[in-house]
């Protein structure tokens, strides 16, 4: 009997917490392809400011999207946040978003960094320039992504695998600017210039240049920022041996990608979700992005962090982010054929 009593108490207590959990005041739920460490702090600021609780689930973009799809109208997610134009495009294709009409957000986010029907909005920009060793490469020899197919770079280039979304988006952009045929021919020569089979992440490519495995790498700037400001002396030292070159300045400009967010189609907490997006594009949060992750703010007129200022101004490729998504499948097939593993 006592056992039964205890059991009943436990059940009562659990259901009480369950009820209090579901009836919690204001909350908003995010599925995020951005890792916890790179989003949680800013979400905590939001909660502090507004009192709205934020629940976070991180994971890979496509897996989260699949979960969103199978949960359908019963999904608990109000927002979907991800880090690549291709992934945002797939979310739009999967009909995962609903439009948001907020003058505030529209004013903050320039037109080519949000989707056509205001289904998603860019939060931060990630540039993908060329890194080189000033000892072994004179920057005059560098020009654009296309020129990396030249014979002079034979056995001298480090870049990560074609599994990587940033590479896929880069190739998708090249397809848009130069056509599929030319891009494929370029990819074949480019791949034959690789110094090694693609392994590792962007930092590994930059380290490859620092340690002399290769002379040139293509990588995202924020990895470089993290390395320059690392607590690990080796990593700082390695980064200092490498310099940034902004490619295609006389042509379309350096390739940039975007991280973005949208309200899910079946969101239950639309008002809170809107407030969170407005907070994320506010000047304060935009500054935080640049400071915490060395990304470029999507909003004009936000002061850059010191590290970003050192790298200097550059011309960005202002191709529509939707196009990167549209060309993504083609880009991967082309890379498969070119032997880019």
């Amino acid at each position, binding site marked *: 009997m006592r056992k039964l009593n205890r059991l009943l108490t436990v059940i009562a207590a659990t259901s009480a917490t369950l009820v209090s959990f*579901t009836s919690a005041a204001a909350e908003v*739920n995010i599925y995020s392809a951005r*890792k*916890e*460490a*790179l989003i949680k702090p800013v979400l905590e600021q939001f909660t502090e400011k507004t009192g709205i609780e934020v*629940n*976070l*689930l*991180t*994971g*890979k*973009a*496509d*897996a*989260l999207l*699949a*979960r969103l799809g*199978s*949960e*359908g109208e*019963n*999904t*608990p997610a109000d927002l979907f946040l991800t880090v690549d134009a*291709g992934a945002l495009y*797939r979310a739009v294709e999967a009909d995962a978003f609903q439009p948001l009409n907020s003058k505030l957000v529209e004013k903050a986010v320039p037109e080519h960094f949000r989707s056509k029907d205001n289904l998603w909005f860019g939060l931060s920009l990630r540039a993908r320039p060329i890194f080189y060793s000033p000892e072994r490469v004179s920057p005059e020899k560098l020009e654009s992504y296309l020129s990396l197919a030249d014979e002079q770079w034979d056995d001298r280039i480090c870049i990560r*695998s*074609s*599994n990587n*979304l940033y590479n*896929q988006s880069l190739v998708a952009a090249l397809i848009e600017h130069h056509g599929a045929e030319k891009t494929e021919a370029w990819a074949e020569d480019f791949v034959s210039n690789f110094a*090694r*089979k*693609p*392994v*590792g*992440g*962007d*930092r*590994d490519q930059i*380290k490859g240049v*620092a*340690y*002399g*495995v290769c002379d040139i790498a293509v990588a995202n700037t924020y*990895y470089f920022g*993290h390395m320059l400001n690392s*607590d*690990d002396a*080796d990593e700082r030292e*390695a980064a200092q041996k490498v310099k940034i070159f902004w490619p295609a300045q006389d042509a379309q400009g350096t390739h940039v990608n975007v991280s973005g967010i949208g309200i899910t189609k079946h969101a239950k907490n639309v008002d809170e979700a809107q407030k969170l997006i407005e907070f994320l594009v506010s000047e304060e949060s935009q500054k935080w992005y640049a400071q915490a992750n060395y990304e470029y703010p999507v909003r004009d007129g936000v002061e850059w962090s010191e590290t970003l200022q050192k790298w200097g101004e550059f011309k960005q490729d202002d191709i529509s982010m939707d196009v990167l998504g549209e060309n*993504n*499948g083609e880009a*991967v*097939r082309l890379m*498969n*054929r070119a032997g880019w*593993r």
Partner: protein
Amino acid sequence: MSRGTLLLFAVAVLIGLPLIVVALSLLNPQWDILSHLWQTVIPEYISHSLILLICVGLGVTVLGVSTAWCISQYDFPGWRYLSWGLLLPLAMPAYITAYTYTGLLDYAGPVQQLIRQVFNVSIGDYWFPNIRSLGGAVFVLCVVLYPYVYLITRAAFMQQSTAAFESARTLGAGSFKSFWRVAMPLARPAIATGVTLALMETLADYGTMEYFGVTVFTTGIFRTWYGIGDAQGALQLSALLLIFVIVLIMIERYSRRRARFYQQRSSNRTPQRRPLKGWRAGFASFICWLPVVLGFLIPASQLLWWSVEKSDIWLEASFWVLTGNTLWLGLLAACITVLLALWLAYGRRRHPTRPLRAAITLAGMGYAIPGIVIAVGLLSPLAWFDHQIIAASKWLFGVNPGLIFSGTVIALLFAYSVRFLSVSLQTVSSGLEQITPQMDDSARTLGASGRRILWKVHLPLLKSPLLAALILVLVDVMKELPATLVLRPFDFNTLAVRAFEMASDERLADAGPPALMIVAVGLIPVMMLSRALRNKSIKTGD
């Protein structure tokens, strides 16, 4: 079929559900994407996967059987420590071992830096094996996975009838000959079980392959899904992988189709451990130390080093929440999985009908399928159940109970059962195989009921395989990553998720503390396991 068998059959099919979802994807083939993949990358996936399977299979057999033999037969300095030390690599997730070796052996790591300083050379002037390669992957998987073979084979060697072995020796066979002609053939089901587990784990590994840039089936599945955005194509590649596994299992079954290995437990003596002296003792120590050093001491020291660098993490409360989550989730999943395995293995023994056997085989194949594929195979059936329940509840009570199965711990537990049932099923079955049916018959003639036979005869004999299964699953769940990543609830993380997020952002030092904690938490069960095994051998020695 009786009602009991029917229930059994239903449960086996339920566990196999995600695999059925995967297999059904073949009904609607995406010719376009498949033919593109076939022309460009699939031949490479197949050849790499085969090389990997053959090399890892040979490696774990050599490492696992030789160490099991030394530990179970000989008395040499340190064998007591080594007998559980050899299990330690079990606690290391393969991808974490891969991170640590990369940290050590990459061109930026301390080893190559030292070489460059001492010989005053620069990169390209000297030869050094590249750890991030197919060979590196084989190395890492061998040193991480051999304990499966060691654990199960050692138990078999220790339980082998002393009589058979001693007869061989009295008939004049030397120890080498008696090993090859008597011990090895008797231990074959155990070795096969261990190697099959190791190979299934090899096929499902994603973390190591991705990190080392090795293109195999698993990485292809991810690439098709995340890269081309084609979930159907990815499922179909998984289905091909499933066929691969079925073939593997059939080969294993066929190779021992006529063999039935029952121990005659007439003699209750433990085999006499023979003392080794001089170079023989040194050789045995070397054989046993090598995998411990490579699979545990070196990677664990690297983790420790990183953890000291990031010592402030140990003070964060959230870190201990992670540890707690990981532990209770693992324990719960391990209990569920082992109970299921016991029930299914029993059912198969008592009612070996063809459909039931097929269903159980299906339920045991989840181990070779990448966790992510299982997760995706589970998403739609779970969501379907949820939608039905919500609709019914709204109609009956006007209340929306929310998602009960998807995005909750239930989904995670389901996925773990699918993925790890095989580990417990194989361990329990190979234990059951060693109990002769005559034993059941004698008990029954003595008037014991089926339940009594279970409690008084089988469970005591099954104690060590059951415990082994429990601990193997516990350790596996704590290391599991991809399914946890997809199915877990809001604000719920595990140590593996944290370690992975840090490492995939190339912050290896930050991945140190959670990885070390997985190992530390995994060590406790490994110790328990070895103690339980030791107590058991002492008891039978009385």
